[in-house]
């Protein structure tokens, strides 16, 4: 699926290895799996891709609520 392809292209970024010490092997390849990930940056990217690749994409406010709500909770 297109959204999985987009997710993968983001998760290939070197920052995930250099800063977050995440190996490609342990990263999800599907948006569905990314949303269920316990790694905040992976899940956040999954949430954003899902929100923007919907047939009717989320609005800015809705996207902000989804992302900040999750991150603020997850990062406590």
């Amino acid at each position, binding site marked *: 699926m297109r959204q999985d392809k987009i997710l993968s*292209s*983001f998760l290939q*970024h070197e920052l*995930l290895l250099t*800063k977050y010490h995440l190996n490609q092997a342990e990263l999800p390849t599907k948006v569905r799996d990314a949303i269920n990930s316990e790694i905040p940056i992976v899940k956040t990217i999954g949430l*954003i891709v899902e929100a923007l690749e919907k047939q009717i994409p989320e609005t800015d406010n809705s*996207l902000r609520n989804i992302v900040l709500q999750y*991150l*603020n909770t997850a*990062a406590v």
Partner: protein
Amino acid sequence: MIIKKIIIENYLCYYGIKEFDLSEGLNIIVGENGEGKTKFFEAIDWLLNGDSNNLELLISAKALNEVSIGEVFRVKVLMEVIPEYGGTASISKSFIVKKSNNGDSIISNYIIEGVERNNIGERSIIDGKTLLERIFPFEIRKYSLFKGESDLEIFKSEAALSNLINLFSDAKHYDKYSTKGEFLRLKSETAVATATKNIDTNKNNYELLEREIKRLEDSKYDITVHLNITEEEIIKVNENLEDAEQHVKNAEALKTINEKIFNIEDKIKKCNSHIDENYTTALFDEKWFLVHFEPIQRKFAEKITNLSQEKRRLQSDFDKKKGIKEGERKAKMELLNNVIPLPIGVPSKAHLEEMLKDEVCKVCNRPVEKDSEPYKFMIKRLEEYIQSQKPDVENEEEKVLFEHNYINRLESLSISHEDNLKQLRSTEQQIKDWFLLNEKLKVEINELEEQLVKQKEERNKILGNSSLAAEKLSDVLKNYNAWQKYLLGKEREKLEYSSKLHDLDIQLHSKRTEKDGIDLKSAHSFLIKTRDILRDIETIFKDTKQNKFNEFIEKLQLKSNSIFSQINIDSFTGIIKFTKKKRGDKDAIEIELQENGRVFYKPNQSLLTSMYISILFAISELSAEVKERYPMIFDAPTSSFGESKTSEFLNLIHETKGQKILLIKDFLITNKETRNLEVKKEFQNVKRDKAFWIRLQRPFNKQNLTTLNTEIITL
């Protein structure tokens, strides 16, 4: 999207209804010049992009001629397509024509109609414009129709290729992630800042920092804007310089040629001024008419001499007979020794006096000593002369033989002519020299004029190679030097702005770190963590978008070069190199043809055309991986190719994916016996999915539009 059928009705040379059933692969339409190829292309262009201007110019003259006054007919172009989403769709553009009383046309406004049929055959009528935008969007259409080789040069504009890549690559899709990533990061930054400022002890210092950061960011923005403007100006000046460099070479050459032309014209002018052919005037003023006078003078002098001798002889006889004084006669006889004496007065009185004074006989050029015999003789001659001038009182009453001294006058005349002879003898040479000089000057003028013609041809070549007019070309040199100075200034300006930006970045980094430090101590850790993650996500999104763009360029370069080398299978091509450049805050792509890492100097038109076509096909193929395919229509794209290269080119296109419609004039030949136009046998070897031959129905009168009717032969 695939074009299944094109129907053209009463559109210019397409009289009646003409149908092209197209294949989804390579469609080749061959036709001689002026037999309907370009009109086919223009008909599609009118359907897709045309407006209501000059509709009367699109009417088939034959159709108008054949209907009666008051009768109506339709001009229409219809395209039946298979959209990517299935079913079929047709779009047509048409207008009605009515023949008026005076034979002219009255035309309606045009209408665009759209019809869709779904997979189960249900038909629905849709607004034509809406349907067209859906199945064949404008931004795609403008990169689908190419008329002639020059249209293919869209890549000369760096922005055009960048747009095209954005349009066809999936990099465009990542734009929204960049925007949303930045939006989310800003929200998290605001949340952190709000939390930090809620603590009173931080407030003043924090607000001061925020203001300072804001000031630095504003300065950075201003400097960036100025830097962008400067960079754009540098690009423009560089483009001008690059453009001018061609002209400068020309301008320098033109300057040299103009100087040569001026010198030659000046020489011609001088030569012309030296040519004097006023021979009639010279005939009299320069006494040319006397050129053959010498023999006449000789005869004249001879006659005078004879006459003089005769006169003296007669006088002598007369004197004898008259009994002139014996002493005198004796003396004379002694002196003359029976020889006929010279007339009295020869040499003249003045000459005798001079000779006596100088004691030299200037007749025989010998010294004459005083009181010598010759000296005395000379004195005697002088006295005789003086005596002869005195009236002869004694013989006053005597009869004289010659009353007038005409012979003497004639002798003087002859002597004076003798003096002129020297000058006359040079006249013939003078005339010869004069004619010779004129001839020489004429030959020189002819040579100079030949040189002038050559130099002017050379100048025309220079002007022909230049897109500038002659007077503008001479200005190029001036502009070129001014642009170079301007460029230097701008480069310095760019350096200053870049340095300022660097300083601002350092200051900003320092202030942000200070602010982050306060945040870290004050704000909730979850807010800090959220912000940090969103900062990283923004970086990931922006980098990924950039990577996608770069990947597409890499693939495009690879694909383009692969197609490029196949088109030019037997010839040297070089490598198409795509270079991404920053133009202000925008990306631009520069295309260069390189050989061993260096820019290919002046590639020929055929190579350039095949390069542009290769890029277009590469984009078309790569875009099909992420987007739907669209047809490409080319009118005479290979006019700089030879027939064999065209053949190879068509065979290669046949291997590429996607629908292509090519209009070419190759593969036709006139049969020498029948004088009929035929398709060459070689065309059988050209791979294609469908081929048509369009030609004017014979006979026709090329000066009468009402006889023109293009017919379609499916090959």
